[in-house]
């Protein structure tokens, strides 16, 4: 109590100094800082809100600017200069086999649940694979399936279609075309002969894609 009384005897620092203080705190802080926090850190009598307004003006049109993030403030790169933040070290990597297969299944069977992907691939789908594909914005969450457990489904994105030059997922070549193009071996893996002959299974399998 006596301390605060004592402090109030001192005058608040000049506005210019307060601006410097806000500037330094925002610069050095790891996160956006609230006005209350700024006031708490600055000398008694300082008014961070006013200093912020001055500082914001000062940074107008500069390479960085003051941004409000909820109740907090931060210094951020001017949006038009974002391109400078991307150091051009582009590294081309080939998508892993697991990722390509998962992506293909989503594309051909969407909307498809993780369990269904696993069933088709015959192996479990790692979280990393799905995350990567989501990260690449090639797949996204679709609607939940109205079955027990309400599993989430995956669908391909517009970004995916764009990347692969497709107008819609329906443009993906069907199994028949894949076979015609020699991409699909007619001869199934040994031991699976009988099942391939099942006409119904073939029917169902192709129904989505055989647009002819």
């Amino acid at each position, binding site marked *: 109590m006596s301390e605060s009384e004592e402090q109030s005897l001192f005058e608040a620092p000049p506005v210019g100094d307060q601006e410097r203080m806000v500037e330094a705190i925002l610069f050095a802080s790891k996160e956006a800082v609230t006005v209350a926090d700024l006031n708490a850190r600055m000398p008694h009598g300082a008014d961070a809100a006013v200093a912020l307004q001055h500082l914001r003006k000062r940074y107008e049109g500069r390479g960085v600017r003051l941004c409000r993030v909820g109740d907090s403030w931060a210094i951020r790169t001017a949006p038009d200069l974002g391109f400078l933040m991307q150091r051009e070290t582009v590294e081309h990597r080939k998508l892993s086999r697991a990722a390509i297969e998962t992506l293909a299944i989503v594309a051909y069977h969407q909307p498809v649940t993780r369990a269904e992907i696993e069933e088709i691939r015959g192996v479990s789908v790692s979280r990393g694979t799905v995350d990567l594909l989501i990260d690449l914005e090639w797949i996204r969450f679709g609607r939940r399936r109205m079955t027990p457990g309400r599993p989430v489904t995956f669908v391909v994105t517009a970004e995916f279609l764009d990347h692969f030059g497709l107008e819609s997922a329906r443009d993906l070549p069907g199994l028949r075309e894949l076979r015609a193009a020699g991409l699909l071996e007619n001869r199934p893996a040994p031991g699976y002969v009988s*099942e391939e002959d099942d006409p119904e299974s073939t029917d169902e399998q192709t129904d989505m894609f055989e647009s002819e």
Partner: protein
Amino acid sequence: MAGEQELDFGDKVEARLAAEALIIDVDGFEGPLDLLLTLSRTQKVDLRRISVLDLAVQYLGFVEKAKELRIELAADYLVMAAWLAFLKSRLLLPPDPSDEGPSGEELAAHLAFQLERLEGMRKAAARLMARDQKGRDFFARGMSENVSRVRKVTYGATLLDLMQGYARIRTKDDFRPFVLDRESILTMEQALERMRALIGYTGDWTDIVTYLPDGWIGDPKRRRSATAATFAASLELVKAGRAEIRQQELYAPIEIRRKSR
């Protein structure tokens, strides 16, 4: 020789007191040079004008005292003592012209230089540490999100990769029917394909229900879907001019026949 040291040493009560204090925390010294530097301060002169002879005497007195007190001195303190004893004798005796080695003065000058250099470094270190330091007095940017060096990884995959991937699974994978929610839905395309093949054989009016594929009649859900698809397919065939369609009355069976040309 020991007595002579005592004698010299005794001349300087202050120094002796200091030396005694030094002995107590001999562990606190960073070696003989550090100790010598501390001892040299008792001379209260510029290090450049220090009397190395006095210093040597002080040091040897210190070592002697430590022995009396049965304090174990590390080997390097004793090496330094031996060297200083040698230096002292060189400084005290007139130079021997036949001696090839460095003179006492040269040796003394070097020791003085070493002390001055160590002192210089200590002062420099102190000044360095007294500077504003990053993370204490001034600060770097706190936000780490905008790290300047972004390594951009682009993942390449072509449509061919995608199709090959899919083909790989499909050929590997025994063509097990993959059952989606479409289990009970017959598409118009499927019905059309079926009817296209069958219509050629039916010259007479036939109930379209007979075109329903096997396995689509029992289950009402499947039957409904198949009927709708078949009806739609029938209309397609009529539209294409390949068939005629009729219904005798309301709710009567819908019949279809090949259009004769």
